[in-house]
């Protein structure tokens, strides 16, 4: 008998291993169940929510797109998310560059500030911003939302881009500078193209963080300016209407698209890297 026969990792999976697999599959069902339930419900012909759904209709999608208030909320969220993405990409790239290539005084305090929005409960930020912006009339303003969402998205962005920037040899930029390039030009022409995939990934993260953000939206939204998550919140609170599963399905598709986008960008980045090392 060979030694391999004794090694448990090569042993045929036994009851315990199958038990664990069964448990894992059950957990995956638990994770995916809400999505698997709500998508079919969006096609039901009935005026109330039911599962399993009856028939097939796209009526609720049509009603969502036709409804002026849903449309306004969606456009507002879109505007905020796009602006947040740009702000995060610009401010975030500057911060990441200094973190990896520059001098940061008080690094401890700096890290605390950067990670703060992850640790501090969102409700604290939301109430704080509400009590700060309400008296000066900016509570429901686009600027207020964009600032808050950028704060939330920055840690994700900086982490993503720092991981990629720290892999790039600083000598590349120095070489460009010794050939007479200024540092900004060296950055834009040499370093930036190499980290573009991660900057775009981070931008996608920022977009979805902003577009789906419910807590700050709950406190900051005024009567008129309601983001999509704010209106969805109300809808769920007052016992869902049949448009909600349709919106939920669209949002799930958006999440899948974002994840797929990030996966493609990762693929691109790894191709990039192999190409760079080959040269």
């Amino acid at each position: 008998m060979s030694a391999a026969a004794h090694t448990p990792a090569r042993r045929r999976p036994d009851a315990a291993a199958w038990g664990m697999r069964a448990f894992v599959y059950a957990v995956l069902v638990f994770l995916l169940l809400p999505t698997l339930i709500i998508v079919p419900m969006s096609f039901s012909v009935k005026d109330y929510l039911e599962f399993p759904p009856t028939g097939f209709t796209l009526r609720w999608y049509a009603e969502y797109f036709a409804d002026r208030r849903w449309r306004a909320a969606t456009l507002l969220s879109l505007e905020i998310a796009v602006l947040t993405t740009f702000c995060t990409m610009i401010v975030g790239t500057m911060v990441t560059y200094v973190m990896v290539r520059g001098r940061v005084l008080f690094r401890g305090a700096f890290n605390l500030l950067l990670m703060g929005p992850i640790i501090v409960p969102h409700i604290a930020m939301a109430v704080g911003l509400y009590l700060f912006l309400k008296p000066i009339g900016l509570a429901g303003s686009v600027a207020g939302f964009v600032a808050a969402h950028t704060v939330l998205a920055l840690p994700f962005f900086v982490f993503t881009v720092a991981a990629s920037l720290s892999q790039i040899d600083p000598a590349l930029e120095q070489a460009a500078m010794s050939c007479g390039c200024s540092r900004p030009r060296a950055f834009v022409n040499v370093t930036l193209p190499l980290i573009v995939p991660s900057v775009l990934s981070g931008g996608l993260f920022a977009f979805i963080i902003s577009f789906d953000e419910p807590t700050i939206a709950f406190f900051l939204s005024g009567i008129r300016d309601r983001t999509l998550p704010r209106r969805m919140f109300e809808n769920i609170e007052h016992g869902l209407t049949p448009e909600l599963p349709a919106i939920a399905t669209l949002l799930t598709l958006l999440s899948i698209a974002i994840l797929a986008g990030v996966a493609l960008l990762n693929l691109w980045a790894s191709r990039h890297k192999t190409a760079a090392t080959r040269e």
Partner: protein
Amino acid sequence: MTAATRIRRRRAVDGRLGGTASALLLAPFLVLMLVAFVYPLVDLLLISVLEPAPTLENYRRVFAEPVYGRVFLRTVWISLLTAVCALILAFPVAYLMSRSRGLFAGMLAACVLLPFWSSVLVRTAAWSVMLGREGMVNTTLKGLGLIEAPLQLLYTQGAVIIGMTHVLMPFMVLPLYGTLRAIPDDYARAAALLGASRFRVFAEVIVPIAMPGIISGFLIVFLTALGFFITPTLLGSPQEQMIVTLISQQVREVLDWPFAAAVVSLLTALVLAIAFLFNRFLAFDKVLGGGR
């Protein structure tokens, strides 16, 4: 050569960005963080002790009135239960992920990451439909003959724990996966060769090595649950308030802003205190990458 040019030369050699340029590039970030993050939090603290007149009355109220003490204890308890549930569900998933390759590993990761990046509201809406009186859970139980009348599942603490476990589970899987992946297969194999049972391999080899990941995931889920707003508000019981529902009630209905500010400050202080205490275990980087 003047000192200044010497320094400039040296910088050009080590390639680092100078102090002034660094400061300039950091300025937008610092201004944003001060205005949209630090100031609002400091402002809360000030409102809680200064309005309408300098007083600690708001804090006294939180500690003196038993109803608020119960709200805090209930929130801590529910958050702990959520973290325990998330750990039990996440560990086997993370373990299988760490031992899988190829398409299967990708599929597992997708199952964990899709919820991570999909809307909390969508998932909460689904739970609210599923746990309703005529919802899928009740009809299934009735169909199986396990219950006669529909159970009150929605608007209970159980619903909050289920909903929050579902939302926060990826925060547990990612740090666990990070530590489990680093354990070579040989360790378990060696222990088994020496005669350890599967259970002993798990309890005495895998778990101790994975402990940093376990603690990190547990803390991240627990701390996030403490201040998690959406699930307790939409699925929770109005009679059994949690800290977040107390805060939103005070801000939006009672309009007692100084008191709300005091409760928010206490919640933030609690979360930050735990975070500082266990600082070295908090591997937020695992979660921040979004599991890439």
